[in-house]
């Protein structure tokens, strides 16, 4: 029924606009009219069909469980009635008219911005879509979305539960981003990858303002493109719009030259606008104007929802989120210390990583659960795309499902069984994939042999419909100290792969120097050689400045950094900063035993690590904690309480102490039996329903630096999860935070559940609306008005 090749498909125009004009009573949900005023709805559909619409959108936009939550109707009733009304109108037409189930946003923001979970959004979409399909919709349109992850949940719900074609359109502002920051390019890449049938832009702007965005869109997707614009800009008070039907059609005319194939109207448009567009189309036909879309050139690119990374030069993949050989990272994973992992991610991005590899594999750990959590949290604080790194297909799929954007999967190899397991996932979720040039027989030694494996991988990927632009070949670094002869084979193989297959290449670099002293020298040399042989995606530690400098220099030498602009800008700033740092050295010397105290009292963070290392030469770690750090923090706490210092200063002192603790922890992890600086475990959480966690985070930072081992469960924490954590860790103290009266309710329930589970622990609470009395009323043992009081409570319980 929907022939994209030879014709322009006409959609309908605004539904809300028409309902208001029809004078029907607008209640809480406009979809209720499907039941109460079915004839009026059918009449609007009929008008659009008469005007020339080939596809009409059923009146089901917001008929989801969340939005109907406070109404008297069920999703099934309103969606079914909506589709049935549209079908009645379509059946009465002589032309072939298709009925689309219209699916708008849930109306709540997804994690990490809001509290809506991916699975819950998926379920709500699934409900609408199965009902819509059953009622006889011909296709599903998901529209007006501003959140790419919510759109992804909807697309998956449509494709996994129905066999209907799926159109997806998102709503952008003039700056080319949605409210949540999604770019046109990221939407195009991600939705094309997810296998929708057509992709586009609707609502928010008039045609002229959408035009530059549509230009980008046709460049970034080979799919048919949909444009459903508003009738210009709205007058927020009158509810009217500023361009006429004739002007609208005139503005839409130039979209035809971009090869846009599916057009219609959104807010403020009426059947008149559709009729004018039909006239515009027949004028074009009469004038012999064709709608030829420019040839599509597929790009190698990955993205988050807010940032696209095109692999059209050397792009750095940060390798640090990986427990292999890292004691502190392993500990962080086992203790569920997500903050540590986030810090590793952020510092790599600040050092220039374009993409982050994420590997959380450890024996006896819930790798899939952790992968999901780390991806969610990382995407809440950094914009760069991620590479999902695991040897388990289940972990990879869990990550792929909730990833916001188009990620890389690390990895497949030449083994048929592996490819047959992983490629269907890569295809389904529209990811890129790393292919390692090894197979059942191991790593072939010669370049030609590795090339042969690469070729097999690329061909197999293509047989699954994965374009070669999305396959990145890893020719595998061998260790120079063990297989010196074959090092050069890696370089040769990479060159072959580049030249003959025309795919992008990726390589973990630092293995080359394993077992050698001063590894960095060898790593830099190998990286430079590899780039000269065609390496696109080095996997390195971007915090090693010599490695990044090698890349920056390469970009000058290969004429990629035009006029050395990037290089000059970056390194002249570094030179400047080094100069300033020298002149800004604090007046107290690191050899002074008082200096750590001074640093903590004044919150001079950059100074604490050196001072602590100096102290460790003469004093034990425990002495440093008890004689210097704690007394200094106590003084800061007292000054905060008396109003001499205020919040940022309290935190500065705490983070300064943190630097000292980090040095002590590292030192002690290298010692056999010096014990621990931990003063005991404390669980802390922002309760279910509450997403304001800044207060909880402040308390955490401050307490951590008194030596308490803080187990941070995060925000919006389910009651069971708190109970479970108390039982598993045996923590003797639990802190709960809630901001609003509405969420103090779940605080009370959490406390009750902890008591009912028979946990032997004390509970303290904090938050804007709590008081000492209120805290007792809901069953808490203590109330703390701030971080300082929280420390006092911990001291009284744990010492």
């Amino acid at each position, binding site marked *: 029924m929907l022939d994209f090749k030879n014709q322009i498909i006409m959609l309908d125009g605004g539904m809300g606009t028409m309902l208001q004009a029809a004078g029907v009573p607008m209640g809480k949900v406009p979809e209720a009219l499907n039941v109460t005023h079915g004839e009026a709805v059918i009449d609007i559909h009929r008008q659009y069909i008469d005007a020339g619409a080939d596809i009409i959108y059923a009146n089901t936009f917001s008929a989801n469980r969340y939005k109907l939550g406070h109404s008297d109707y069920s999703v099934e009733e309103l969606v079914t009635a909506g589709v049935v009304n549209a079908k009645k109108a379509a059946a009465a037409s002589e032309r072939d008219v298709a009925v689309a189930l219209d699916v708008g*946003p849930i109306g709540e923001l997804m994690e990490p911005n809001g*509290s809506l979970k991916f699975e819950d959004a998926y379920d709500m979409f699934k409900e609408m879509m199965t009902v819509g399909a059953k009622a006889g919709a011909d296709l599903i349109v998901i529209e007006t979305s501003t959140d790419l992850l919510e759109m992804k949940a909807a697309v998956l719900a449509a494709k996994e539960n129905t066999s209907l074609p799926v159109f997806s359109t998102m709503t952008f502002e003039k700056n080319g981003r949605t409210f949540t920051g999604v770019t046109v390019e990221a939407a195009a890449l991600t939705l094309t990858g997810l296998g929708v049938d057509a992709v586009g832009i609707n609502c928010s702007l008039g045609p002229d303002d959408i035009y530059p965005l549509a230009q980008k869109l046709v460049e970034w997707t080979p799919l048919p493109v949909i444009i459903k614009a508003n009738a210009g800009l709205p007058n927020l*008070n009158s509810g009217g719009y500023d361009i006429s039907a004739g002007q609208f059609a005139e503005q839409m005319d130039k979209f035809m030259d971009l090869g846009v194939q599916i057009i219609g109207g959104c807010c403020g448009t009426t059947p008149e606008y559709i009729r004018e567009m039909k006239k515009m189309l027949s004028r074009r036909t009469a004038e012999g104007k064709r709608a030829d879309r420019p040839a599509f050139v597929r790009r190698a690119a990955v993205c988050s929802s807010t940032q696209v990374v095109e692999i059209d030069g050397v792009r750095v993949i940060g390798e640090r989120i990986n427990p292999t050989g890292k004691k502190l990272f392993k500990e962080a994973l086992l203790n569920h210390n997500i903050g540590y992992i986030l810090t590793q991610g952020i510092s790599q991005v600040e050092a220039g990583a374009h993409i982050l590899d994420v590997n959380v594999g450890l024996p006896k750990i819930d790798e899939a659960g952790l992968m999901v959590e780390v991806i969610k949290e990382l995407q809440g604080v950094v914009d760069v795309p991620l590479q999902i790194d695991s040897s388990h297909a289940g972990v990879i799929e869990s990550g792929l499902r909730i990833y916001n954007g188009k990620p890389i999967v690390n990895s497949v190899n030449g083994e048929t069984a592996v490819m047959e397991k992983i490629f269907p996932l890569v295809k389904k979720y529209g990811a890129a994939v790393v292919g390692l040039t090894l197979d059942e027989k191991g790593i072939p030694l010669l370049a030609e042999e590795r090339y042969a494996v690469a070729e097999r991988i690329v061909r197999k990927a293509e047989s699954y419909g994965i374009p070669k632009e999305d396959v990145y070949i890893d020719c595998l670094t061998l260790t120079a100290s063990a297989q010196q002869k074959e090092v050069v084979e890696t370089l040769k193989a990479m060159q072959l792969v580049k030249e003959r297959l025309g795919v992008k290449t990726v390589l973990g670099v630092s293995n080359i120097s394993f077992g050698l002293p001063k590894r960095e020298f060898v790593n830099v040399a190998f990286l430079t050689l590899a780039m000269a042989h065609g390496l696109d995606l080095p996997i390195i530690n971007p915090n090693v400045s010599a490695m990044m400098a090698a890349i920056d220099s390469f970009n000058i030498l290969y004429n990629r950094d035009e006029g050395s602009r990037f290089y000059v800008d970056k390194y002249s700033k570094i030179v400047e900063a080094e100069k300033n740092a020298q002149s800004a050295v604090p007046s107290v010397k690191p050899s002074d035993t008082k200096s750590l105290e001074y640093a903590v009292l004044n919150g001079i963070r950059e100074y604490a690590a050196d001072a602590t290392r100096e102290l460790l030469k003469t004093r034990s770690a425990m002495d440093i904690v008890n004689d210097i750090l704690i007394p200094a923090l106590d003084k800061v706490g007292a000054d905060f309480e008396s109003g001499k210092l205020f919040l940022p200063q309290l935190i500065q002192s705490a983070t300064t102490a943190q630097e000292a603790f980090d040095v002590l922890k590292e030192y002690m992890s290298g010692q056999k039996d010096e014990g621990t600086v931990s003063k005991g475990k404390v669980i802390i959480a922002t309760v279910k329903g509450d997403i304001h966690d800044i207060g909880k985070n402040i308390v955490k930072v401050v307490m951590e630096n008194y030596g308490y081992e803080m187990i941070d469960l995060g925000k919006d924490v389910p009651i069971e999860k708190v109970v479970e954590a108390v039982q598993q860790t045996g923590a003797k103290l639990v802190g709960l935070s809630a901001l609003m009266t509405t969420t103090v309710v779940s605080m009370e329930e959490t406390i009750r559940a902890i008591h009912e589970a028979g946990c032997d622990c004390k509970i303290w609470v904090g938050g804007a609306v709590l008081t000492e009395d209120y805290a007792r009323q809901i069953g808490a043992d203590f109330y703390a008005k701030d971080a300082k009081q929280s420390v006092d409570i911990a001291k009284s319980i744990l010492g």
Partner: protein
Amino acid sequence: MIRRLNREEILRYLGYKDSGVTERIEQLLNRCEAETLKILQSKYIYRRFPVEKGADGIRIPGTALVLFGNDIQEHLKNCNEIFLLGATAGIELDKRIRRYMVTEPDVGVIMDSCGIQAVEQIADLAEKEMEQEVSAEGCHLTWRFSPGYGDLPLETQRELVHVLDTHRKIGVSLTESCLMVPSKSVTAILGISDTKRDVRKNKCNFCNNRERCAFRKRGTRC
């Protein structure tokens, strides 16, 4: 366009009383203010409605919104019309604050206060426009009364954001427990009256949190 933030207000949110602001803090404040202004995504929407006062609450005809409670009755006592307002500083600020709370929490709390100040100013901008509109008619506005003040239930938010269609128009939505996302957002009800602004009373009188308010204890207000 907001060109600068109110430094005094930011310091007040941070709990600053009268001790000197150190040079270090001063530098941080400058940095945070500049960054906040750079990433701000100011958006607001307001709509004017007549109101119908009934025994059980104030109704907004044509919508399902009803304003319950004595405090809003008092607030709108001289008004036959109102504005509903929604304003936000945008989602990027939330992301930035989250990131700083991991890497530099001192910067994080200052950015948080900058965000609160910014959204107040955005609401001020909207209020100025509304003020202009009504002063041409010889009328005045009351101050911004928000759901959750006094005995106006926080749940009023649900219908308020629905009526303003904030999710679609300015990107503001609610969580299950009525928290606004982006977090630096405000909603408010402003009355339109033909008498001077004498109905404006100290807003602390309406606040549920007045007994335990950290600001009041320090002798200031929020």
